[in-house]
């Protein structure tokens, strides 16, 4: 058949036909979206209708008033004032603070362990590299819950009881006379002040004014130190000679703090064996220790892999260039490789922080009183408000996650490689 070429003399007259909704790519996506929207709304309506009917059948309403009723249960680890007469809402806040403390502690340790193991895994020393490979593979391939239970069992079974510290032929002794590791928890010295300025009333919490002042002074010192360094940078870029800053930094960072501590009468309160248990000092409960060790060592293995991948992503030429400049292996790593690798390492690192935060909810396994055990456990059981409780918990975890991933986006925006793509 011969092709007939016609030159259009005018725009072809096009009428809208119904089939064009599906066959014309201009309209098809609209059709699909309208269809999806209708399905979505029907689905939501169906779910909400079911929920309402189910709640009505059970004779329940949907309200958060239970948050203001008396909790009546005890929480063994609390950062703010709490007793059994306080409300479920207060108990939830205590639990949330426990979650946050555990997450922060675990993130810090996991980073230290992970970076060390990741760097050592690339070491030219075969013993060290193999050992780190064993560590990483062992922890990555066995469930976190099992590790938490193992550390919980170590803390409750393999560690001496407080009575082992007693008497002349004690089978256990305190480390440096300050730290006691017992099966009832780890006791460490606590910071005490001879002169107290009283407390600051914030409504939810009453932090000690001494601590508030100390934090403010530390912040001020850090800012002052940064100002000194900025000044040095300016002078260096103008004259080419960098003024000596180390003694200024040392004075600024330590002197005001030490002076303030001396003024407050700072001293340490050591734990002492009195009666059947240690008294004084700070008690870190077994549940906290087991969760802390479990989370940080387990996640450390993942971070080690991220760090290794980040370092390997830096081309070998960088190492060779650093060696050509005469830098040793340690300095090459610190000054050349790590600063570049950080750009690759930090995004997955922060997603590991996210995992840690979510995994704190496994605290239930060893009886750690986190948000899930307080609000999502005892409160739900006592009040029968599963729907409201679970909603609230999901919202809180979701906002924690969003805060962390938001900080990641800020980091990514600030540290994007200029011009280059890694």
């Amino acid at each position, binding site marked *: 058949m011969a092709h007939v070429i016609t030159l259009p003399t005018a725009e072809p007259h096009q009428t809208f036909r119904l089939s064009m909704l*599906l*066959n014309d790519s201009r309209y098809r*996506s609209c059709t*699909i*979206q309208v269809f*999806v*929207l209708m399905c*979505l709304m029907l689905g939501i309506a169906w*779910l909400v209708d*079911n*929920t309402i*009917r*189910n*709640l009505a*059948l059970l004779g329940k309403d949907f309200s958060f008033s239970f948050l203001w009723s008396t909790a009546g249960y005890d929480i063994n680890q609390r950062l703010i004032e709490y007793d059994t007469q306080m409300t479920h809402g207060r108990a939830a806040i205590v639990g949330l603070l426990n979650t946050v403390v555990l997450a922060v502690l675990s993130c810090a340790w996991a980073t230290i362990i992970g970076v060390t193991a990741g760097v*050592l895994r690339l*070491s*030219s*020393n*075969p*013993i*060290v590299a193999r*050992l780190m490979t064993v560590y990483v*593979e*062992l922890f*990555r*391939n*066995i*469930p*976190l*819950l*099992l590790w938490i*239970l*193992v550390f919980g*069992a170590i803390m409750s*079974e393999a560690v001496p009881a407080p009575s082992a510290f007693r008497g002349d032929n004690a089978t256990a002794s305190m480390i440096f006379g300050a730290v006691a590791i017992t099966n009832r928890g780890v006791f460490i010295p606590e910071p005490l002040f001879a002169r107290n300025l009283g407390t600051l009333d914030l409504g939810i919490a009453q932090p000690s004014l001494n601590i508030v002042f100390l934090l403010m002074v530390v912040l001020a010192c850090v800012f002052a130190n940064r100002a000194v360094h900025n000044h040095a940078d300016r002078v260096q870029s103008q004259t080419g000679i960098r003024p000596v800053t180390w003694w200024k930094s040392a004075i600024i960072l330590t002197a005001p703090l030490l002076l303030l501590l001396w003024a407050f009468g700072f001293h340490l309160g050591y734990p002492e064996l009195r009666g059947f248990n240690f008294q004084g000092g700070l008690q870190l409960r077994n549940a906290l220790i087991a969760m802390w060790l479990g989370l940080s060592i387990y996640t450390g293995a993942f971070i080690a892999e991220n760090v290794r991948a980040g370092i390997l992503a830096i081309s070998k030429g960088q190492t060779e260039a650093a060696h050509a400049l005469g830098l*040793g*292996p*340690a300095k090459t790593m610190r000054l050349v490789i790590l600063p570049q690798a950080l750009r690759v390492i930090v995004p997955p690192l922060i997603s590991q922080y996210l995992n840690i935060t*979510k*995994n704190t*909810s*496994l605290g*239930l*396994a060893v009886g750690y009183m986190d948000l*899930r055990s307080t609000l*999502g456990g005892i409160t*739900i059981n006592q009040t029968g408000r*599963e*729907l409201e409780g*679970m909603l609230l*918990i*999901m919202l809180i*975890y*979701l906002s924690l*996650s*969003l805060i962390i991933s938001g900080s990641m986006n800020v980091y990514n925006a600030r540290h994007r490689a200029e011009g280059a793509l890694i």
Partner: protein
Amino acid sequence: MIDGNPAFVRGELLPAREPPAGEKGLLKLCRENFFRDWLSALLTVASLIAVLLIVHSLSPWLFNAVWNARSLNECREILNGAEGACFAVIRDRWAQLLFGFYPPTQYWRPVLAFGLMLAALAPILFPSVPRRFLLFSTVFPGLGYWLIWGGSLWLPLTAYIGLAVGGIAMRLTARLGGGIAAGLAFISALTWWLVASGPVTTALAQLLPLALATVTSREMGGFLLSIVIGVTGISLSLPLGIVLALGRRSTMPLVMMLSVVFIEFIRGVPLITLLFTASLLLNSFLPPGTNFDLILRVIIMVTLFATAYMAEVIRGGLAALPQGQHEAAEALGLDYWKAQRLVIMPQALKISIPGIVNSFIGLFKDTTLVVFIGLLDPIALSNSIRATTDWQGIYWELFIFIGGLFFLLCFGMSRYSMHLERRLKTDHR
């Protein structure tokens, strides 16, 4: 220029001198690898000490291990004060750790199902297996379900007939365009499952029973449960994750927004809260009076959870593909689905293999979390074994057994992914 006779010309080469003592043999090897600088030396010594300490403290415990005893007390009597492990607990309770409270006379069923699963996996995992065995892989899910839960064979069979009905409907309506055909196929299959399959199953079961003894979900536990949840979750999360990843990269704002909300919500909450939702709340979202199997509910939640992570992994692979691939596919005249199937996905999935396998491993490890909603996974069983009078206070032996099995399975998965990456490597870097 040298004129005349030189006084002396060496006719042959001097023999090579011995290298200095520190530059040869074992000494050089040690120096370069273990004691290159003070840090390396320190690390070597520290790791040797650590290894020695671990071996020293664990070896008597392992070498004195007791394998034959009825209870922990008997173990201690045999050991007679010496330090030693009591692996007799594994010998005594291994069946429970593997199968939970599955009826002992029926153990052959999960074992057979596991063997068949390996056979069904073979053509998927290894290209050297003939392609026609893939047919068995598609049959296996129904067969495995029937073997493990029991009941009438006609139930999975009629479910498969539903798939066939859908396939036929799609073939018949293919003229109308891909989207409509798929929709009609889905609707006809759904109609078959909801309306026809029930009566047909009962009728066929009366005609020819073909039934195995039913085993309830409550009786299942141990690694059987972990593997059932893990394998189902893994095989469902990959296709769903692909769809969700495509949804997130869609040009339709509504579809993209929905995918983003779903992914970010699921990734933002811990799996435990989803599992609690499955056990406490899922029934209140469904019509009053609905009640379905707890294991099924858990599988749904675990699959949703894994799907969100999978979608992000695959999105990473899609983002790594150069735009030119999309454009080339369009230039060839491929429509959206054909372009995805033939050009984009094979490359994107290859890039994301490590991430995909990582999330498989994560999913399999996360199956242990079902202990919190009262299912009897290996960890729950280790707790209940510890609660019996015979084995009260036994920890490490059970942990070692459970951890060892998990390690084998997860490590196997990660090794396979490395093998797959090497096999599919086509670049010449």
